[in-house]
């Protein structure tokens, strides 16, 4: 076995897994708190990558400024999305929320195709060609930064959810909406923050991955489908479950990509999801079936 090849696959998988986790945790947070499946989540990831591309390539922002600006814009978009569209959905919302956000996704995706065509853009910066050498094993700096940013975001999200008042309120709403209402939690403020954080995380993911892969208007679509599989595997609405499942999926996919035929690589996410549903419907890390 070629160990440096194996280690390379492992690193790539880990980076991909962390990025999946950022997207999937946002999706899971929004589902947990609002019971809304955000179909347009992948489009926000795509728009974040596009924005990162334009900031860096056209207006000469440096790496960290780009990350910061895109994440802040993501949070702002989340606020607007909640106040503008999601707030209008009340009561029995699940199917309506999917159809609504799917309409949004169609507008964003086809609008982006209309404006930017489907040509992929490669974000080239100083970072693109920098590597850290460990023995004969090359580690691209852009991937390492993406990995670091991902873990930093996990830590911040964990602290928000477990140490702050509003974070605890958010988990309270996710666990039992009626009880949260009764103890006086403002569901609207909590939901708004959840959407803002969710879209912000996606923005961060898009910006961090923009220097690694090509940027184009259709990239969000396949991505969100993996994120859906991840939140099922991790347990619907279970945020840390989604994070763990995402990292696992990233690594398994990368290893499968190196060792198995192409068709199987893309099927890994779907097959693991079906297996989990059959064997452990509440998800690998679920606390029991939520209705």
């Amino acid at each position: 076995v070629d160990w440096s090849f194996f280690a390379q696959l492992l690193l790539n998988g880990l980076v991909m897994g962390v990025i999946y986790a950022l997207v999937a945790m946002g999706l899971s947070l929004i589902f947990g708190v609002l019971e809304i499946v955000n179909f347009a989540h992948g489009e926000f990831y795509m728009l974040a990558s596009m924005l990162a591309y334009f900031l860096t390539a056209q207006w000469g922002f440096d790496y960290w400024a780009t990350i910061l600006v895109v994440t802040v814009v993501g949070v702002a978009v989340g606020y607007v999305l909640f106040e503008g569209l999601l707030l209008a959905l009340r009561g029995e919302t699940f199917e309506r929320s999917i159809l609504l956000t799917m309409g949004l996704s169609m507008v964003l995706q086809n609008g982006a195709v209309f404006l930017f065509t489907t040509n992929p853009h490669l974000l080239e910066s100083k970072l693109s060609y920098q590597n850290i050498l460990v023995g004969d094993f090359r580690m691209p700096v852009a991937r390492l930064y993406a990995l670091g940013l991902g873990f930093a975001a996990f830590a911040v999200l964990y602290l928000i959810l477990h140490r702050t008042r509003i974070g605890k309120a958010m988990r309270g709403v996710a666990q039992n909406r009626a009880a949260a209402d009764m103890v006086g939690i403002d569901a609207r403020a909590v939901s708004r923050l959840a959407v803002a954080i969710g879209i912000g995380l996606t923005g961060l993911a898009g910006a961090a991955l923009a220097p690694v892969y090509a940027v184009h208007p259709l990239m969000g679509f396949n991505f969100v489908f993996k994120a859906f599989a991840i939140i099922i595997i991790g347990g619907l609405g279970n945020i840390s479950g989604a994070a763990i499942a995402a990292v696992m999926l990233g690594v398994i996919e990368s290893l499968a990509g190196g060792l198995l035929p192409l068709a199987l690589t893309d099927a890994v996410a779907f097959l693991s999801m079906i297996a989990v549903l059959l064997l452990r419907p509440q998800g690998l890390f679920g606390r029991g079936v939520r209705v």
Partner: protein
Amino acid sequence: MTGRELSLAVIAGLIALFALPLVIENDYVMALGISFAAMSVLAGGLNLIYGYTGLLSFAQVGFFGIGGYTATLLVVDRGWSLWAGVAVGGVLCIAVALLIGYSSLRLSRHAFAIVSLSFALLCAIVARDWPELTRGSMGIPGLPTPVMDLPGGLRWRIVDPSDFYYLLMGFAVIAHGAIYLVVTSRLGRAMRAIKLNEPLAQSQGVNPLSYRLLALSLSALLAGIVGGLFVFYLTIIDPSIFDFYYTETMLISVVIGGPGSFWGVLASSAVLAVLPDMLRFTTDLRMVLYGVALIVAMLIFPGGVGGWLYRRQVARWRRPKPKAPAP
């Protein structure tokens, strides 16, 4: 409309549809008719699942493509007749539908929506990345002309657009007939009950899982068959048969027509088959407009046109009767 008027209208409509190729010999009109026949069956099946049993399904396009690929491969590689290939495709779709439905509905209808979506996307990926089976993204061009043996030793070679018009329109009539029979029967009432109030339906002895699996199987069968017939009209199959575009168009038909409204969805599929094509929108622009329509429909009238008409009707029933004039 009374039952008698309705059946007269249906018979008149059927005669008009089947006389159309005799009156207008125009390939463009035939093409619109064929696309209406195919899309209306897909939308009708989706309406059965979503409109009647309340499950949002993205799997229809997967069954459409599986039906198409199964029929193609059996005809091209194995030399089967189209009819046997289409039948096997339909049965395979039922098997897949039961697998997806049973595994995800154990959890919730939320899980079903997500699993059906992943399934549809997986189909596209497999069709593209498994060239040993599907010939990959190049697809399989040059599908042979289907021949149907009619009673009395006649052979119908299905070549011209008008032949395919009769084939697909004929199947569409059968398919909508089957859907109509289901939704107006006891089965349809049970399905509506499940959608309106699942715990209450359960407490009356209705098992939601079996009705949902039934609706899912029927719509999978119809979508699979229509897929098998449609690709022989196109004479090529490639992974774009699984394009999300079909799903979006179907969902728009159902949402605008009114989920749970048989005639509403049928009418909206006719309008959506004809109108955008005649207005010559580019695909990007069309999808942006569909997206806007979906958002507006969800925010303002989630029941669609059918739901709106139904609410008006209910309001009319509830209106107090005018008092008899005082003597």
